[in-house]
């Protein structure tokens, strides 16, 4: 389309044009994402090259003090009277060497095999019974060797910083410039280095409790860690991509077939659920908000408060209570039976299809207050004269909604919708507390009809100890979420930047 033609359109047509284009552009969006990867890699390579260049320069141009800091970290700084930073580097090196020699190294060397002997049974004459001696624990080997790799990476980074620091202080001295004193260094942590002071603790927590565990589980996906291979009694070992093959249906055993089938079913339901859960809440919440906001409707605050009160009651309480009310023997069924409205109990949560519909409806009940609140704020920002002119042109309320309200809302709340969609893909509480993934079925491996990937993952881990397979499911979930959101975010950003709505 020519630009001029595009500009001639009304804002709503423009939005629809963009909206349709958005879906048309999805495949190319995915393609361009992958096309961008080489460029990113090249950039990364440049960054690495920069590191090597600096180190090379330090080796070539550095004086003996700088060169000495290749081996003794912080030497160059200490020799130039930057005591604090020099001492910190030196201390770090000492700690690293101690860590490696007393702890890290012995785990790191076993990473390839994940241990040789797990546990030996020995007859103990004194006790008159067998005693168990535990040797290698695959789990700890994997965990600690990963930790060691992380620490080693940190060491390499700090080492590079030390070389760079020495070189800079050498250049400062040669140029007869004043080197920053200890006091200056400390002061910089409230100023130009303030981000380091602020972020070090949050990032440390993130690395130890999020990044390291994620790496660990990604590695676990390539092992046969399950009930039959439980440390410390047994070892587990590397099995390559077997778990991935099993889950994708490439395996030969019956077990593999059933896993693959379950994965397909659960994945499909997860996506269906996320779609309906997001859009029913959104559209219905918006309609409620519009009704409350309509001119002439009284007690606006009252209606809003009624809904907000329901947010305030903790979600888990409402969900568990609902699961009790809707049970086969629950109050709702019993009341309906007593009043003669039904002949036998409605299987709200015990029949596959029924349960799925019930879950979506209960989720609407839980979610509408939130989406109502969000929509209310935005609805008030839509200029009144748009509706005025629509009315003059003879548009009814439905038409005005379709042509003004909905496009505007979609435009403004796209990021919210995306986060909601992704949140629903991983919505553990609603499913687990309502149905626990049930009704269960024999067709599926450890999963019920309403299980999402995340609740299946939970069951496989907590009750079945199928860690290997569970990790693969987690990785697949990540890939799905990541691809969807990267593409959606990129597209929505471009839609937004192209031209602001109105």
């Amino acid at each position, binding site marked *: 389309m020519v630009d001029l033609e595009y500009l001639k359109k009304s804002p709503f047509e423009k939005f629809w044009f963009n909206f349709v284009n958005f879906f048309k552009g999805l495949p190319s969006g995915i393609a361009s994402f992958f096309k961008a990867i080489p460029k990113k890699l090249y950039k990364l390579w440049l960054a690495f090259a920069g590191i090597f260049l600096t180190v090379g320069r330090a080796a070539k141009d550095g004086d003996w003090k700088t060169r000495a800091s290749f081996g003794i970290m912080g030497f160059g700084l200490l020799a130039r009277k930057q005591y604090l930073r020099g001492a910190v580097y030196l201390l770090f090196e000492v700690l690293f060497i101690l860590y490696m020699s007393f702890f890290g190294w012995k785990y790191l060397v076993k990473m390839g095999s994940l241990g040789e002997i797990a546990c030996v049974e020995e007859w103990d004459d004194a006790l008159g019974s067998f005693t168990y001696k535990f040797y290698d624990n695959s789990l700890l080997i994997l965990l600690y060797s990963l930790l060691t790799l992380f620490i080693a990476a940190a060491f390499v980074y700090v080492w590079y910083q030390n070389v760079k620091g020495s070189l800079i202080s050498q250049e400062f001295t040669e140029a007869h410039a004043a080197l920053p004193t200890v006091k200056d260094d400390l002061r910089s942590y409230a*100023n130009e280095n303030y981000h380091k002071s*602020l972020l070090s603790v949050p990032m440390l927590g993130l690395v130890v409790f999020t990044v390291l565990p994620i790496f660990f589980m990604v590695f676990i996906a390539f092992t046969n860690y399950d009930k039959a291979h439980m440390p410390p009694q047994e070892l587990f070992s590397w099995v390559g991509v077997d778990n991935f093959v099993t889950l994708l249906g490439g395996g030969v055993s019956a077990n593999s077939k059933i896993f693959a089938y379950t994965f397909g079913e659960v994945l499909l339901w997860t996506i269906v659920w996320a779609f309906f859960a997001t859009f029913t809440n959104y559209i219905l919440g918006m309609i409620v908000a519009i009704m409350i906001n309509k001119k002439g409707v009284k007690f606006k605050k009252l209606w809003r408060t009624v809904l907000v009160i*329901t947010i305030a009651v903790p979600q888990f309480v409402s969900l568990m209570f609902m699961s*009790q009310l809707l049970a086969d*023997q629950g109050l709702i069924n019993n009341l309906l039976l007593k009043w003669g409205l039904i002949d036998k109990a409605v299987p709200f949560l015990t029949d596959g299809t029924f349960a799925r519909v019930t879950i979506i409806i209960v989720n609407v009940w839980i979610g*509408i207050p939130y989406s109502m609140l969000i929509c209310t704020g935005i609805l008030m920002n839509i200029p009144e004269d748009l509706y005025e002119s629509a009315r003059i042109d003879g548009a009814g309320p439905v038409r005005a909604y379709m042509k003004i309200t909905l496009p505007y809302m979609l435009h403004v709340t796209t990021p919210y919708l995306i986060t909601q969609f992704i949140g629903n893909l991983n919505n553990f509480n609603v499913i687990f507390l309502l149905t626990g993934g049930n009704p269960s079925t024999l067709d599926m491996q450890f999963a019920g009809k309403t299980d999402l990937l995340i609740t299946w993952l939970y069951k496989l881990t907590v009750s079945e100890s199928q860690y290997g397979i569970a990790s693969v499911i987690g990785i697949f979930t990540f890939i799905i979420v990541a691809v969807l959101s990267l593409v959606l975010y990129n597209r929505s950003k471009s839609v*937004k930047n192209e031209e602001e709505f109105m």
Partner: protein
Amino acid sequence: MEKKKYKSKKAGETIALVLIYAVLIVISLVWLIPFFMLVILSFRGEAVGVSADYLFPKQWSFGNYVKLFTETKFPVWYGNTMLVSSVVTVLQTVIVLMTSYALSRLRFKMRKPLMNVMLILGMFPGFLSMTAVYFVLKEINLTQNLFGLILVFTASSAMQYYICKGFFDTIPKSLDEAARIDGASRHTIFVKIILPLAKPIIIYTILTAFIAPWGEYMFTSFIMLGDPDKFTVAVGMKSWLDNPTLAGDYFTVFCAAAVVVSIPITALFIWLQRYYVEGITGGSVKG
């Protein structure tokens, strides 16, 4: 002619309004009735379990509440949850504020990459990492321990910087610049200028941080597996419902517990509602 048309339009408006009122009343009922039922059931004196076919109790009594606080572990769970939420609230608020300020106001080389990494980390299903976290905690003897739970809840709170950063972004940069010219350090600006302006978002962060541990089931149940003395209310109350021998008897006790849990949170929520609404509406549309 003209007048008639006007009148019919007015009639249409009235019908629309009546319809809207009708729908709103129905909605309010649908939304509130379950909570009334919850409260009413908690006062039921007779032990007929889940399968009774009437709502209003034959005997009104406080028996369930008495039982709740004398015969069950509920007081312990309540204390646990209160302790965990309070500590998590303080730590998480501090961490979120520090991270958001750094990412919003300071410019450093790793800023963009850091935000991207956190975005990607957020896409991993949280439970995936749970096994590893469990073994990390086990190594430092913090499983079945409330401090372990606090550690897990706070350790990754940096990832919740998003909404708070959005708020900081809206505070004019000229304030910082003026203070810089007057010789204030970054730290002074953060503590003396930005934080006092950030009251709404601080309250929002506190509110969400406080409520989260009350409803969290997945991590808590895994870390506290097998030790009922360390449960939080969500895990404990679910354990009643999961236990087939208890479920029937404990249904009304469960309702009483639900009421007791809801009261402080509802009160807090209604009190601070304004900030909560500002938080979610502000954070959700900025993108």
